[in-house]
């Protein structure tokens, strides 16, 4: 890795990291590792030249990620490096209150999903599915998202006339697909106002009802089938048993549920960057632990399938769309949040590529 300092001096070879001011190092001193790096990058005091994903791959592999104490000592004598803790970027989430109360969960969801529907339309394909697609060779993102939605419908055994509940319905991709392609009636719930209005509008004329509601407050079960696509990460470790119990309670005996969910094998949680910038209070854990919690709620796990390698392709497709429309993105969400998203997608791609995270479809049945 090569580092270029604000005075123009350059050290090392390889891909270039540019430090635009001593404040970049101050961020790293106050919060070493992933968080400090993210803060410096997001605020623009640190930049990577060339492809961001490649640069991050190198950073992780390089010694600069675990600096020599002597180097740190040398750097803190540079004027402007030592100093009070820099203000955290405005794009960071600041939540208060006890974890996973209804109020705090609403705030956490609003932080990420109420950003701007127009912005999500820039990045996502027309289905507005914001979760891992299922690719077969040569598939476009659109085709792969449809394939994913079809797989979900197949695994739920949807037949015309059934009632499907979608817990965490996003912008309505599954609700609209299931209602129009499989002839089922769908209730979708979300905590995001902007998702609700978007999904409600596009589902007009279909037997789809989108509710702004907490999953703990759904009271018109049981349903013939329940889906929850990359939503279980948000309920947290303490909330998961209650979430699993809700899936069980809302599903009729003999009915099927499908949970698509991300997992982390080592260091459960969300990771410092994700927790501050993307999804506060998010929790991911190894698949087996999730399976155990679902089983403890009385559900039978019939099938799990790892889709991690599909997430690499999904994120890459989102990156391509984003890169092509960066100016529009900046106009919609501002420069700082645009950098958050650049970092989020590049970092996300790497965690899946390197197997530090995975995502699974988990097919369940209530006996």
């Amino acid at each position, binding site marked *: 890795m090569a580092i270029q300092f604000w005075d123009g001096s350059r050290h090392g070879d390889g891909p270039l990291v540019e430090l635009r001011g001593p404040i970049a190092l101050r961020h790293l001193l106050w919060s070493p590792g992933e968080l400090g790096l993210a803060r410096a990058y997001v605020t623009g005091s640190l930049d990577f030249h060339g492809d961001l994903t490649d640069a991050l791959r190198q950073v992780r592999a390089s010694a600069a990620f675990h600096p020599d104490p002597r180097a740190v000592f040398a750097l803190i004598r540079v004027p402007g490096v030592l100093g009070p803790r820099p203000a955290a970027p405005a794009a960071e989430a600041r939540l208060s209150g006890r974890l996973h109360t209804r109020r705090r969960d609403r705030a956490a969801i609003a932080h990420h999903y109420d950003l701007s529907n127009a912005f999500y339309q820039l990045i996502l394909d027309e289905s507005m599915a914001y979760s891992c697609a299922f690719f077969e060779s040569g598939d476009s993102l659109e085709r792969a998202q449809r394939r994913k939605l079809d797989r979900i419908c197949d695994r739920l055994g949807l037949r015309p006339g059934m009632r499907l509940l979608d817990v965490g319905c996003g912008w309505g991709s599954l609700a609209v697909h299931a209602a129009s392609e499989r002839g089922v009636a769908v209730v979708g719930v979300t905590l995001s106002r902007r998702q609700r209005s978007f999904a409600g509008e596009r589902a007009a004329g279909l037997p789809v009802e989108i509710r702004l509601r907490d999953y703990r407050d759904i009271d018109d079960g049981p349903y013939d089938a329940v889906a929850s696509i990359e939503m279980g990460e948000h309920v947290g470790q303490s909330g998961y048993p209650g979430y699993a119990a809700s899936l069980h309670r809302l599903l009729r005996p003999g009915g099927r549920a499908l949970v698509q969910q991300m997992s982390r094998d080592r260091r459960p949680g969300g990771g410092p960057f994700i927790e501050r910038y993307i999804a506060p209070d998010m929790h991911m854990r190894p698949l087996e632990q999730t399976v155990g919690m679902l089983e403890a709620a009385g559900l039978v796990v019939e099938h799990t399938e790892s889709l991690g390698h599909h997430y690499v392709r999904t994120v890459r497709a989102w990156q391509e769309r984003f890169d092509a429309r960066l100016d529009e993105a900046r106009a919609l969400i501002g420069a700082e949040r645009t950098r958050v998203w650049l970092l989020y997608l590049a970092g996300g791609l790497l965690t899946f590529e390197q*197997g530090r995270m995975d995502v699974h479809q988990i097919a369940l049945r209530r006996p």
Partner: protein
Amino acid sequence: MNNAPRTWLRAYLARQLFLRVTRRMKPSLAGLRLRRPGDFFRRVGADGLIGFGESYTAGDWEADDLVGVLTAFAAEVDRLVPPGLQRLRRLALPRVPASDLGTRKGARRNVPRHYDLSNDLFAAFLDRSMTYSAAQFPDPRTATWADLATAQHRKIDRLLTQARVGPGTRLLEIGSGWGELAIRAARRGAEVVSITLSKEQAELARERAQRAGASGKAEFRLCDYREVEGDYDAIVSVEMIEAVGAPYWREYFAVLNRRLAPGGRIALQTITMPHERMLATLGTHTWVQKHIFPGGMLPSLSAIEGLLGPLRIVDRLSLREHYARTLLLWRERYAQQREAISGLGFDETFHRMWTLYLAYSEAGFRAGYLDVWQLTMERGRR
């Protein structure tokens, strides 16, 4: 004669336990009739669940709905024995005889004890695909005998697809059965090495492969899984780990890992028990082990996960309901073929033993005491 008081005491305790259990399970045990209660309690008292099975074979008891009664027992299995006594089960229950352990020598003796019984026996109650493992039906609740062969092919095809078997794939199959999977893999253009310890299986598998025009592509070897050499792009093993024995599970997975070429995939089909039950029964001897599968032991999913080494499971699919249906269809078929099977030299005691084995297994899957999984594995990326 010294044993008389002890035998009497054990029969007495068995009777008390049985009454306690049946009081609680009364509705589900309708139709269980003790024909010779004295013999029944003596056998159960002396040999526990082994005695329970043997007393059925001997005709001490009958049931109108054998699977129903066994399902009720299986559902209660954890509560059958009072918790205080559960802890003593390792002391009280017979241990697996050393001669049944899955060493190379032991395995060469154990496997033929089941699979060399008679190809004609298996042909009598299996469908024409001669597949002796869980099938995969479109709907397991309504499937009939006419659906079985197609459902066996569906199962095989899914395993081959999961293992990414196609033209030119070097495929290793551990546990040949009577060759159907190897034949279908050869038809996909794979080069198959399939191993078994059953001479009868290997001979019939070769014959069937030849008839199918696949003999050039599918080679059947009489060989222990620990003695295979070479690299394979794909490995498939269907309901074979059950015969490996717990002390050798680690080695079995080490062999899978050693034989798998970089980028290759493994597809296993395996029967499992819940982890707690597995721990409780580890090392004890059961009726199924004594009479049906010597040296056999069912793993739990967690046990498997702990033994994978660098391998990791990327897909797991349960065929639990499918197995219950498969076993039902086999049992019905066996009943239809009873006379023909007698003609092969199998007597009434054998019929009752086989019927109990199929019914007991079906009950296990219905009650959730048994499960069966297709596991797809890769070498981990980490």
